[in-house]
């Protein structure tokens, strides 16, 4: 393939913009996720910062043309630091009427809507619920700049020479659309051309057809077949810290972090899981890491998965299990066993909207109560959370460190948004990560399975097979020290106190809470956790640019909370806690610190918009 130049249109005709939000939306079968992923890669290669939001239906192959079968991929890319996937769309590409009706409300006034007229058939219009074709009649699109293109026909024409069936030919129309958007933002096609050649290496006709479609879409823009008022845009590279980058989803970074963590701890990794959306991708990643000696186990159910992970930890490997909210609920009794027997274990929860099956492919952060409180009896364990797709790496390493240092299960909270959303990641320098090697107990001198390290209160970790250390552990209350069955009242009190003190003591091992933006004494502090980091950060920085005294505190450690957090929050008159749940962290903060924290909550399956947060903060400041 020939190298294609970056900007075929003269530069002066392009409007330079700071950032743009583009969403590709179409049928599940239209390849929107692939299209978005390619656009993401190309934006990253062009030096933009970016954030993405893949949004797809729960149904695997929903009937074509239906609203519930619409799959979308949104990307916000720009010359500045990008914190979210974007509030409003600058450009919406729709491959059928269902995609238009379900996505139009997110386009900003005056934004561009590009529609494939070829898919606006009577049948598709009816399936989407349109009485008449909105591209032809009515005023529903009056507020937008609409570009009507028969992408279907143009794609079929572009790939004619490859002798594909009409159906096969139409499969390339996503590449046609991608080509057009590449032209619109002056993007190079080469990375996608390479990718297509690689993906279809065994089927060169399909590769060539897709490339032809990509080029045809690009040429359509280039040869000025576009309406005169719509020119190209250019988005300069962002000011990004220099270094080597790749993109990662939250799943990628957590998988890498867990593997790295076990290497730093010098323990084997045994990953046991049962498939569940949106957590399964973690199982897939580890299953492909066999050359690292990673053992993966697809168990018969959620309980078996955590059971096997506990068994692996007992045998001296680090057992890790992963699920989403409903699956975590099933694991809880076993997690209690790991708390009682004081074994290391990591539970990754990719939260989704609930309760029950809820909205399996939509995000939420409503398992905080479950993580902190959701077990029978007094069963404390550390809970830490991931705040961005790149943050997963360090958080996962920290989970391994805490689990092995304190001999405790650790719950790692991520969510459906982070699991799928990708960001550019400055690949970290591995030499900066200090090892924290586990010392298994091998010395039989005065060995007691429930003796404790005086500093951490952790009990010794013994690999079965170690000479002279044979011992028994179990879920019945264990005598302090010997671990023998004990029903003694004073022993249960003591062991309950010890278990609590061990977890509370972690607060002395983790960093003090820092203020992300602003300072103590500002009029209001926004306290967040998890994937709300991006929108809160941008909302607060926008408002600070206006001169408003707003601060941002973002928690990684949910339990135990950082030791200085109470004092820190006490330094603000107002505490606002935005969460994608009905108010969970806010309850925890109020209970722990008696602060007048106020919740700001939403559960519509989508991340916060920056302007939603700005509006909420502003209304509190004007009180």
């Amino acid at each position, binding site marked *: 393939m020939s190298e294609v130049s970056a900007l075929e249109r003269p530069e002066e005709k392009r409007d330079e913009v700071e950032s743009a939000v583009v969403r590709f939306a179409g049928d599940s079968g239209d390849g929107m996720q692939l299209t978005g992923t390619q656009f993401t890669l190309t934006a990253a290669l062009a030096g933009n910062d970016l954030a993405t939001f893949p949004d797809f239906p729960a149904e695997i192959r929903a009937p074509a043309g239906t609203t519930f079968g619409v799959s979308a991929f949104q990307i916000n890319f720009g010359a500045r630091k990008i914190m979210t996937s974007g509030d409003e769309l600058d450009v919406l590409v729709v491959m059928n009427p269902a995609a238009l009706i379900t996505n139009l409300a997110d386009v900003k006034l005056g934004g561009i809507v590009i529609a494939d007229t070829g898919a606006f058939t009577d049948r598709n219009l009816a399936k989407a619920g349109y009485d008449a074709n909105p591209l032809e009649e009515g005023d529903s699109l009056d507020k937008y700049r609409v570009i009507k293109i028969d992408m279907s026909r143009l794609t079929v024409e572009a790939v004619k020479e490859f002798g594909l069936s009409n159906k096969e030919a139409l499969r390339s129309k996503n590449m046609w659309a991608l080509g057009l958007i590449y032209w619109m933002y002056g993007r190079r096609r080469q990375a996608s051309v390479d990718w297509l050649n690689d993906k279809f290496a065994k089927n060169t006709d399909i590769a060539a057809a897709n490339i032809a479609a990509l080029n045809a879409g690009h040429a359509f823009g280039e040869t000025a077949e576009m309406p005169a008022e719509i020119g190209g845009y250019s988005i300069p590279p962002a000011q990004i810290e220099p*270094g080597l980058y790749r993109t990662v989803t939250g799943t990628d970074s957590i998988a890498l972090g867990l593997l790295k963590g076990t290497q730093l701890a010098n323990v084997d990794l045994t990953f046991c899981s049962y498939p569940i959306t949106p957590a399964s991708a973690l199982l897939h990643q580890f299953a492909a890491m066999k050359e690292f000696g990673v053992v993966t186990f697809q168990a018969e159910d959620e309980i*078996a*998965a955590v059971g096997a992970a506990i*068994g692996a930890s007992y045998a001296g490997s680090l057992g890790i299990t992963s699920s989403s909210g409903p699956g975590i609920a099933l694991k809880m009794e076993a997690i209690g066993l790991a708390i009682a027997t004081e074994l290391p274990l990591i539970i990754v929860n990719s939260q989704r909207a609930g309760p029950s099956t809820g909205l399996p492919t939509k995000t939420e952060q409503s398992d905080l109560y479950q993580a902190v409180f959701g077990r029978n009896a007094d069963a404390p364990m550390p809970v830490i959370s991931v705040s961005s797709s790149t943050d997963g790496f360090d958080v996962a390493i920290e989970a391994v460190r805490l689990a092995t240092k304190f001999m405790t299960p650790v719950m790692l909270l991520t969510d459906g948004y982070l699991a799928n959303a990708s960001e550019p990641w400055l690949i970290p320098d591995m030499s900066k990560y200090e090892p924290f090697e586990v010392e298994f107990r091998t010395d039989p001198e005065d060995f007691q399975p429930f003796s404790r390290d005086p500093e951490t209160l952790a009990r010794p970790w013994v690999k079965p097979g*170690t000479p002279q250390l044979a011992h*028994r552990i179990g879920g019945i209350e264990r005598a302090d020290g010997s671990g023998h069955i004990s029903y003694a009242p004073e022993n249960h009190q003591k062991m309950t106190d010890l278990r609590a003190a061990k977890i509370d003591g972690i607060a002395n091992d983790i960093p003090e809470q820092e203020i992300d933006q602003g300072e103590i004494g500002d009029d209001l502090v926004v306290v967040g956790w998890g994937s709300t980091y991006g929108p809160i950060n941008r909302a607060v920085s926008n408002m600070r640019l206006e001169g408003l005294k707003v601060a941002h505190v973002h928690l990684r450690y949910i339990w135990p909370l950082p030791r200085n957090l109470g004092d820190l929050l006490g330094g603000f008159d107002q505490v606002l806690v935005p969460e994608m749940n009905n108010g969970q962290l806010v309850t925890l903060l109020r209970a722990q610190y008696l602060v007048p924290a106020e919740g700001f909550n939403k559960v519509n399956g989508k991340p916060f918009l920056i302007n939603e947060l700005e509006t909420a903060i502003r209304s509190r400041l004007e009180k």
Partner: protein
Amino acid sequence: MNVQTPPEKLTAKDFATDQEVRWCPGCGDYAILKAVQRTLADMQVDPEQTVFVSGIGCAARFPYYMETYGFHTIHGRSPTIATGVKLANPDLDVWVVGGDGDMLSIGGNHTMHALRRNVDMQILLFNNEIYGLTKGQYSPTSQTGTRSPSTPYGSVDRPVSAAQFALGAGGRFIARSADILQKHLPVVLQRAYENKGASFVEIFQNCIVYNDGVFKHFTEKGAQADMQIHVEHGKPLIFGAESSKGLRMKQGLLELEVVTIGEDGVTEADILLHDETNRPLAMLLAAMQPPAFPVALGVLYCAPAPTYDGAVHDQINTIKSEKGDGDFDKLLHRGHTWEV
């Protein structure tokens, strides 16, 4: 490292802990514990390479009494924890101990999957056809009509047959014995230990408090000879006080029948030979019930197959030898990277 002195010959006592055994006086579990301790000593098994894993129930207290590594876990989940132990360290010798409630009711699913995966471990199911620890409710193996606190008018559901369930789940080693058979049980336990894979042993165990005598129709001294058949690979399926009864296939049917040697022209040559590799035969033997048939004891089925834990590690080793040991830096830089 301390220099280890060569261990003296282990005795059954070396496998007993200093913990007071807390089963009811007269419980069949005592006899099973003794048999296990004796068998392990006879085989000179290394206690420190041995792990006993149990769930919840009377039987599940077992690990506390074994001077080996042990893990008393939660109800029904012992096969999952044992699977994790084997995945992390396939060199350990793992025994799973549980009752009929633990392994066929709450944990039936896990028992099934441990068997079909053929995880290398011994699964001892103490079947007493009752819930002991929760004070006497009927269990999934209780006969229809069992009166218990939760079924005061008699249970109305039909029981599951443990051995048939295990065969149906794809188990590759299915054996049976009883608590009071102190000569027979160790032989079965040894066979189970020697089999590489999931070895399932159903042990009929008398609950003296809540279900006393439920098996006496075939375990009492007077009934043993006529109501038990001890199967042995390659030997004729003969039983009875005078060793005059035997099993043969009904002509033209997939059914067993009891015949008497010397009657109706039946000779020893007509008696079926036990073939422990024959799964359909094992199913027929497992299904036999008194009074029409004797209860089949011994190794009903043994047809070894590759183990799950072995296959998992073989695959890892194959991939390591093909790709070389994983390089984290390479993984970190996989896919598209770009310099800013």
